[in-house]
Each structure stands twice: as C-alpha cells, then as structure tokens.
C-alpha cells in the first residue's frame, strides 16, 4: 500500500464523508427535535439537485451561486412542509408519521418523474470534473467544493446550536419538549427551524451531487438510506454523532473499496456490519443519549 494511494483514498473518503454529513445532520436534527423519522429527507437532496440543475440549465447560474438560491428555496420548502403537513402528525402514532413522510417522499418522486422525466441529469461546469493535482493525489474541484461546503455548513450548524439563543432552545426541545415549552420557547417555531435546516442542508448536498455526480427522480432513496445508517450509527438525534459517523462511513467505504479486491461491492455491507456491531455494543449508537 503506497503512501500516494493512502492519501488518495483518504481524500476520496473525506469527500464522501462531506456529502454524507450534509445529508445526515439535518435528518438527525429533525429526529432529535421532533422525534420524527423523516422518510422524505432523501427527496430534499433530489430536489436540491434538480433546483441546481435547472438554475444552471435555464439561467446559466453557476452552482456556487445557485447554492444560495437553493438554500433559500429549500428552507422555504422545509418550513412549508412542517407547517402544512408534519405539524399535524406530531402527536399522532408513529405509524401515521411514517406514512405521512413516506407519502411526501413518493409524491416528490412522482412529481419529479412527471416534470423532469427519469433521465439522468448532471451539471457540466468547468470545475465539475476537473481536479487539483497535489503530488500524486487528485482532488476534484467539485468534490473539494463539497468538502468545503460540508465543513462550512456543519460549522455554522454548530455555531447555531452552541452559540445562539435559538440553538440552545433547539437543544432544549430535543432533550425535553415539555420543559422547553414552559421555558417560554415557541416550540412550533423551533420545529420549523429544524425542518428548514434539514431541508436546506440536504438541498446543499443535492447541489454537490448535481455537480460531482448526477441526479434522477429516485436518487433520494440512495441518500436517504445512507443518511439513516449514518444517523443510527452516530446516535439518533446527535448532530455530533452524525458528523463522526459520516466520517467513519465515508473513510471506511473508501478504504475498503481501494485496498481490497471486490471492495467496492463489499464496502456497503461492511458499513452495515459496523452499524450492527456498534448497535450490539451500544444500542443507542455512538453518541446517542436514549
């Protein structure tokens, strides 16, 4: 195993981890705050990717610029879904919640299929598949953008959570919603905030995907599934756990795929094995609290 290969595998793993983190922090936040597993979370990635694709295709907006637009759009969508739909099932049995979010997912998938067909779409900007060469390591600009974005956005989320009033309120709601209520925290607004952040971050992951890979109507499933693994590994509701778990899974998948024959088809199974082992030893996940 050469050093160059090791460095390349690490770089690949980090960029994968960045993508995973962008998708999963929002999912875990929403769960932590509302105790809802949002099965439509992956669809936010898909919508973000299409938004970025169309902004680029119709108006020539560079993904770096459209990112801001996508963040705003997805924040709005998250808030809308929260206030019109999810809000209604917060007190309902889990099955109803699952059915609702699942329904939202299927609706978005079919809408996308109807509006944009099943074709693969990808953005071709000058940096989408070109790379920086650092000695033996090739780091694509698209992926570097992904890693950078993931770091910035997760950093901002930490700042929000640990340095602001609303962040503190959000953590409080996650720990004890009733106690948070009598602190005078407008809990519905906190829910909206959480869902909006979740949607926006997933949308940002979609922008990265539209540049460095592609999108199609069912791509949300791929990301949603991965995000669920990450979130469960990290501990349901733990943003820090999701960040760490993203790193673990991203790096493990990259290393297994690079250094073992047939590794690329085993990588995912190995992720699941890690997940199972961790759950056996720590049923609440790495950093879960319940």
């Amino acid at each position, binding site marked *: 195993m050469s050093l160059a290969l090791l460095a390349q595998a690490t770089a690949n793993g980090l960029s994968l981890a960045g993508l995973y983190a962008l998708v999963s922090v929002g999912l875990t936040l929403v769960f932590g705050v509302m105790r809802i597993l949002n099965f439509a979370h992956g669809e936010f990635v898909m919508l973000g990717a299409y938004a970025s694709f169309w902004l680029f295709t119709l108006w020539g907006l560079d993904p770096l610029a459209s990112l801001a637009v996508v963040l705003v759009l997805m924040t709005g969508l998250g808030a809308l879904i929260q206030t019109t739909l999810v809000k209604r099932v917060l007190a309902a049995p889990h099955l109803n919640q699952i059915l609702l979010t699942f329904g939202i997912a299927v609706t978005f998938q079919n809408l996308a299929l109807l509006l944009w067909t099943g074709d693969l779409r990808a953005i071709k900007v000058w940096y989408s598949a070109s790379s920086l060469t650092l000695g033996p390591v090739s780091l694509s600009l698209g992926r570097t953008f992904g890693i950078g974005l993931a770091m910035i956005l997760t950093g901002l989320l930490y700042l929000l959570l640990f340095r602001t009033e609303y962040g503190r309120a959000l953590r409080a709601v996650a720990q004890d919603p009733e106690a948070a*209520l009598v602190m*005078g925290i407008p809990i519905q607004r906190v829910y909206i905030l959480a869902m909006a952040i979740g949607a926006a971050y997933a949308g940002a992951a979609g922008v990265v995907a539209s540049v460095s890979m592609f999108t199609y109507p069912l791509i949300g499933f791929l990301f949603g599934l991965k995000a669920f693994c990450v979130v469960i590994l990290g501990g349901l509701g733990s943003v820090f756990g999701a960040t760490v778990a993203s790193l673990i899974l991203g790096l493990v998948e990259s290393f297994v795929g690079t250094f073992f024959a047939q590794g690329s088809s085993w990588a995912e199974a190995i992720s699941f094995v890690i997940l199972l082992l961790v759950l056996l030893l720590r049923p609440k996940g790495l950093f879960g609290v319940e």
Partner: protein
Amino acid sequence: MPLLELEALDVCYGDLQVIWALSLAVERGTIACLLGPNGSGKSTIMNSITGLVRPRAGAIRFQGERIDRLPTYEIIERGIAHVLERRRVFPFMSVLDNLLLGSFPPRGKAKRSDQLARVFALFPVLAQRQAQLAGTLSGGEQQMLAIGRGLMARPTLLLVDEPFLGLAPVVIRELLDIFARLNREEGMTILLVEQNVEMALGMSHRGFVLESGRLVIQGPAREVLESVELRQVFLGRP
C-alpha cells in the same frame, strides 16, 4: 382582582374528564397551596394554567385577562413561571445553559445578568456548578436549578409542582426559606402543589384541597388545616 383566577374549569384527557367545574383564585402577593391525594388532578391544573393541557371548558385569567387560549410562550411572557413536577432540568446541558434557557422569554432576557446574580445569590451551589451537566447534579441541586431556572424569567407568579419530593429535610428547610423570602422580599405570588399537608399549609396563606378533580375545601391555610373534611380527604375518615 385576584392575580390568577380559574373559573368553572373542566379538563379532560381524551374522553376521560379529570377536573370538574373547578374555580379558584390566588391573590397577588400570597402563597397558596394545592393539596390532594395522588391522581386528584393537581398537576393537571398547573399544566392547564401554562397551557400544557387545554381545558375543555371554563376560563383562566391572569391579571384579569384570559390566558387559556394563548400559546404557552405567551403565557410565560406575561409573567408565569412553571417549575414542573420531577424537576425536568435539561440533563445534557450545563447548569448555566439551563438557567439561561429560563430567561429565553424577552421579559427575562432584558434583565438576564441581574437575574442570574439574584439566582446565584439564592442558590450559591448553582454558581459553583455552572459548567456541570445538569443531569449529574444531586436531586436537591436539580430542584434548586429547576426553581432558579423558573426565576430567570422574573415571574410575577411562580407555579411549583411538588418541589420537596425525595429531598432531605435540610434541603426542604432551605427551599421553604427561599419561597418565604421570594414572597416577602419580592412580593412574588406562589402557587405550590404538595403532598405533605402540614408543611404546605404551614408555609401558605391559603389552601385548596382537591379530591378526584373537584375542589372540596378552600380557605385560609390555618382553617383548612384544622378542618374535619381535610382528614376525610386524606385519611378517608372523619
């Protein structure tokens, strides 16, 4: 005009009615206690006041205004603090964060540092433990934190649900003293839920006794303490 007024309140959980046509009033500047056996509906009444449960019928007035349709955060903003049963501190947050959350409402935020100083003066132990996770505090410390957190919003009315549960006598005495001081020095109105009848009535001006969701006795604390009905309610005999 009483500070807090409950009028013909009916409260249900689903189809199960647990409070029946209950009316009571708490005067400004007094300490009142709400007594009753387990399951008689004390916590339910407290929770109705801060909007955690919504009454089916009746009215709740605070400072003369209806509050029973307001969202909880607006009720809190008007000056009611609610120290929930079993403390309910945020276990994975520091003592300081817990206290700061108490001053989330604008009325608390405006005077945050003064209020923090005041709470630390009342409970010096909290000042020492600021950075500690609330979940790792002792039961007594947690209760102090819960009360201190309630005070951070500078309430006019403090609702406290069973603050002495499971605490050592020394700590109970300390808390009793603090309630008395808050009432005396700041004119704070306190509505207290308690199981220990004598202790509660001993510290209160007025007592309310609940049985199966109905108010069965009310009056000045001393009279309630000496009433025959009280024995009936708690011991099931005259």
